[in-house]
């Protein structure tokens, strides 16, 4: 494995303010030794893409609790191309019902971690995919 730390951007898209989940996952990732940048609330797709590019992250994580994950990811997708971020790992967690998983996967999401997912599963997934990428 590379000596470099895995860099993650945790984005909180849209207007929803429920950040309990985003913050606990940020802490779990920090404990796992990742470098984590948390965007704070209410970020637009462009702000998230910009931050991911500027911070040169390996992983773009989104936390969505209020149901607007599909329109948000739809808006973010072209921006990932624009900012040359298409090779980054793109994951989402939160209140993302199983009926939407296929739509999101087709959009390019690498993984979905719905409410109830274990920290270990999220971290192991990122580590194993990171090994493949580097």
């Amino acid at each position: 494995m590379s000596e470099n730390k895995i860099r993650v951007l945790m984005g909180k898209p849209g207007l929803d303010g429920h950040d309990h989940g985003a913050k606990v996952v940020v802490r779990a990732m920090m404990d796992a030794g990742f470098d984590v940048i948390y965007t704070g609330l209410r970020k637009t797709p462009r702000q998230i893409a910009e931050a991911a590019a500027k911070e040169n992250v390996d992983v773009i994580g989104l936390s969505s609790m209020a149901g607007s994950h599909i329109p948000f990811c739809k808006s973010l997708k072209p921006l990932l191309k624009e900012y040359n971020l298409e090779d980054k790992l793109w994951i989402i967690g939160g209140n993302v019902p199983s009926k939407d998983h296929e739509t999101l996967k087709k959009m390019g999401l690498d993984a979905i971690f719905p409410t109830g997912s274990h920290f270990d599963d999220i971290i192991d997934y990122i580590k194993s995919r990171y090994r493949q990428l580097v």
Partner: protein
Amino acid sequence: MSPKEIKPKEIKNESGIEVKALYTEADVEASGGVDMVGLPGEYPFTRGIHREMYRKRPWTMRQYTGFANAKDTNERFHYLIENGQTGLNVAFDLPTQTGLDTDDPLAEGEVGRVGMAVDTLRDFEIAFDGIDLEKITVSLTINGSAAILIAMYLAMAEKRGYDVAKLRGTAQNDILKEFIGRGTWIFPVEPSIKLVGDTIEYCAKHAPKYSPVSVCGYHIRESGATPEQEMAYAFCIAKAYADDMLKRGLHIDEFAGRLSYNFNIFGNLFEQVAKFRAGRGLWAKIIKEDYGAKDPKSMWMRMIAAGGGGGLTIEQPENNIVRGAYYALISALSGAQTMALCCFDEAYTIPSEYAQRISLRTMQMLIEEMGMCETVDPLAGSYYVETMTNKMRQKMEETMAEVEAEGGIVKMVSEGTIQAKVSAQAYGMQKDLQSGAFPKVGVNCYKTDEEENEVEFHPYDNRDADQQIENLNKVKAERDQAEVDRTLDQVKADAEAGHNVMPAIVAAVKAYATVGEITSKLVEVYGYYQEPIKF
């Protein structure tokens, strides 16, 4: 795995207080005795704020409701009232909550999604059409844009012919907790507190029966606070609002009676009941001794004890019906004035009519079948409950003193230290849930391999947003633009001068100025909040 195998020998409740296997009179004495118990309806109100409590009137049932637009929400309101609901608790969509109009680019994909969309007074006229505002009191779950929505509610009622001086109702309007959890802030901390103060002052003068603030421990608990912290932080916040009023020259008795609270009900039953009983005594003591109140009503910790969202689970969603029943029992045993229950499907979606009705029936069963309204504070005198009530009260006082020692709640919220503290606790709790150290049925024990029953999802239709924009454009075309401009300029002028902005906001909403237009004027003066990111 059975949870018993990993339970430590020493048992502590979530607030960190040891729970013994047996309690006797000696424990009550050792914890401070029964001096703070008293009688219901009498200072220090530990046993309840009214002498007869539910015997005179059961708690108000106020399910959190709102979606899509004013018309659809109005239909659901009528459905709930027909099914025996006795109050309304309005959910607004996120654009409304963050001061954006439906046609704002930032609102895209969010219009009407988690609540009802409101742009102008017209939406309020439709939402409350046919509802008797004297019989059914309305609670507005609104914070960042609360000054505007309170103004709309008062304007709507006045237009319908109600005397605003007699109008009852509540707004959540607790911005300090929004910075800690829930996150629908707009302006920086100081002007946000000033706006809350404007609403309290305005209501004290013009709508003295209206409760302009419901201080929420609820969301602080959801963000990771322990039960005792939930109360302690809420009291610190309420004190911050009260201090602002005193600075304006009001006497405590002019406004304290209209402050109310919103607390959470999930967790250990006895800890919650002790929490509420302890909280009532402590708040009464603070208002009487520290603020010099004379009117007993000023000392009342009136509360909606509700929700329980943080206790509900995605896993085995039907179990949430049973949890809801226990939570309602906790609330009834705790002397809540109002109750709302999170629905069993709420971890997934906006509750269906069916789920809402089950929650309503749960509360009605407690009233009609379980004898919960017959006797006041039935757990009083239990060695365990009285000991725990004393200990919880002492713990809350310690926590409040810690906040003071760190510079006060406003400073801690501004710097993000409270946020970091509760989120660190939330992380610890989440780890305990994942390891099984904190048992949760269906989540880390008694799991099932069977396929979960999928709940029915509330439909979201993009066309609702288009319709709402069309409605907004129609109102804009019909209104007197000169009057809109004039009243909006006045909002800005009053904000700049540091005056109470409520009279100007009331005039603006009456002219059908939008939530977004009024918010923009205030932003021009106050700016936006910058969130401190601290871990």
